[in-house]
């Protein structure tokens, strides 16, 4: 039991690390929910791969998931680039249309002769507690590759996040970089889906990066901090799920991440609510003497 928990912990911690690092850039690009969108966009790919191969082996299903995930990214980029529809609407459209097509295809697969498609949709709602050593090795390789990607293209991604037009002016291929970053998110989502499911993957891509945002204004510090929060959520959630017999690992990881976010929102030294309240009180205390001096004058004016 405990050895198993160690595998689950290292798997979820590595996923959290990679998702936190990549999520920081998605968040700054106003695409905090991109992970959620891509996770839903993989459904038609999973079903098509099953219909083509007739098996439920992980390899073809993951390839299918990645294929329609990439198609989803391209659709979001095309809609926002060639029309005035904003990113949020483009992402919602891709999410719902792709998922709708996935449901449609599931209906078709159901009627295939000799087909046993039950559990195909469950592919998307994985179980963290079922992570085995083979999964962890795959997650480890992918997480390392994704962190390396961010390290190599750090400067370019930073430009993309903060001033895309300036980057384009400098001659960087910003659309290609945008696509590269989105491909990174697709990879993280596809690997994470089977292990931890749609909602947990969306949370790992959003919450740690948001928590990190409250502690510093420097991107070079936010990125590792987000990775740290993601990994810590994985560890804390897995540990908490060992306490009781019926505590599910995935949701507890999300809740651990949410606690990190809440603490950061309140107490973060850079933009936290307490710091802002303190600054406000401080500013008010400093301006009070001026008001005192004004009051007698006003009264004097009344008497005259």
């Amino acid at each position: 039991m405990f050895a198993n928990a160690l595998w689950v912990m290292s798997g979820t911690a590595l996923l959290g690390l990679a998702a936190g690092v990549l999520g920081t850039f998605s968040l700054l690009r106003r695409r905090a929910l991109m992970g959620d969108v891509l996770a839903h966009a993989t459904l038609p790919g999973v079903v098509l791969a099953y219909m083509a191969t007739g098996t439920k082996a992980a390899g073809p299903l993951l390839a299918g998931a990645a294929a329609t995930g990439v198609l989803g990214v391209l659709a979001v980029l095309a809609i926002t680039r060639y029309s005035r529809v904003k990113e949020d609407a483009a992402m919602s459209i891709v999410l719902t249309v792709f998922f709708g097509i996935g449901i449609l295809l599931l209906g078709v697969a159901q009627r295939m002769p000799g087909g046993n498609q039950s559990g195909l949709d469950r592919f998307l709602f994985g179980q963290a507690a079922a992570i085995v050593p083979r999964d962890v090795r795959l997650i480890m390789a992918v997480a390392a590759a994704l962190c390396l990607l961010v390290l190599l293209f750090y400067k370019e991604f930073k430009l993309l996040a903060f001033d895309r037009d300036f980057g384009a002016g400098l001659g960087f291929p910003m659309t290609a970089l945008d696509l590269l970053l989105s491909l990174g998110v697709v990879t993280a989502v596809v690997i994470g889906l089977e292990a931890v499911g749609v909602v947990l993957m969306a949370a790992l891509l959003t919450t740690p990066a948001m928590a990190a945002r409250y502690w510093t204004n420097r991107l070079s510090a936010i990125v590792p901090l987000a990775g740290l929060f993601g990994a810590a959520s994985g560890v804390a959630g897995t540990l908490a799920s060992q306490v009781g017999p019926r505590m599910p690992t995935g949701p507890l990881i999300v809740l651990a991440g949410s606690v990190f976010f809440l603490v950061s929102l309140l107490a973060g030294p850079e933009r936290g609510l307490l710091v802002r309240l303190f600054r406000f009180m401080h500013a008010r205390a400093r301006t009070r003497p001026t008001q005192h001096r004004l009051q007698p004058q006003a009264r004097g004016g009344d008497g005259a």
Partner: protein
Amino acid sequence: MSASLVIVAVGALVAASAGLVGSFLVLRRMTMLGDAISHAVLPGIALGFLVTGSRAAPVMLVGAALFGLLTTYLVQALERAGVREDAGTGVTYTALFALGVALISAFAGHVHLDLDHVLYGEIALAPWDHWLLGEVNLGPRALWTMGAVFAVDLAAVVVFYKELKICAFDPQMAGALGLNVTAFHYLLMTLVSITTVGAFDAAGAILPVAMLVIPGAAAYLLTDRLSRMLVLAVGLGVLCSVLGYLLATATDTPVAGAMAAAGGAVFLGAFVVHRLKRNRCAM
């Protein structure tokens, strides 16, 4: 009334109500709220069951509606605390969904309690789920609930048209004119929550979530006037429902999924028209 007509009518009412309030979400860049609510209502049904011990539809609906409202209000509150909408939406719904799963497996693991079976309806069954008032058969229940939801949405948009319009386009000016901008934001959020949760019961999750964005975004590409956009959104929503039903019967596939896929085709059509119009203007 024939069964197919009931299905198309329920789909059209869902699409029209969601298209109406969704148009304002498109303008305010908050369309991901629909997907967020579809996940975030889980703790509502879990608590509804834990408190009353019943899985009856009204209990589940009240619990879901309360958590739908809570989701929208939390996103709004986080925004006022300086968290951008997309990020606030992400953190709120994932946390609430996780809370729901944890509550169910910790306290209600012995009963079957998941969104698919308890809250989300199936639009293909709508013609046979009648509303019985004592002895009187009032016809399909989904038609009544979605009709009521559409009436509420339409009334709110007609009565507060000017206020909702100015809050969507220029909240600063609305504030300067003395409007209570926050109150109107919360009004819109309440409409979104009522519409989605009502439609979940009638038509499942994917249809309302899709119709909250697709008709509004397609209409946004076709016109520059809000009044026309709203009328177009309702019309395009109805079109999605009809096309989706035809697709579903032609291929013998799930109706709600087909309606969402048809929505994709409708948006693609609007996208092409928008591009052609722009190219003609450029020449």
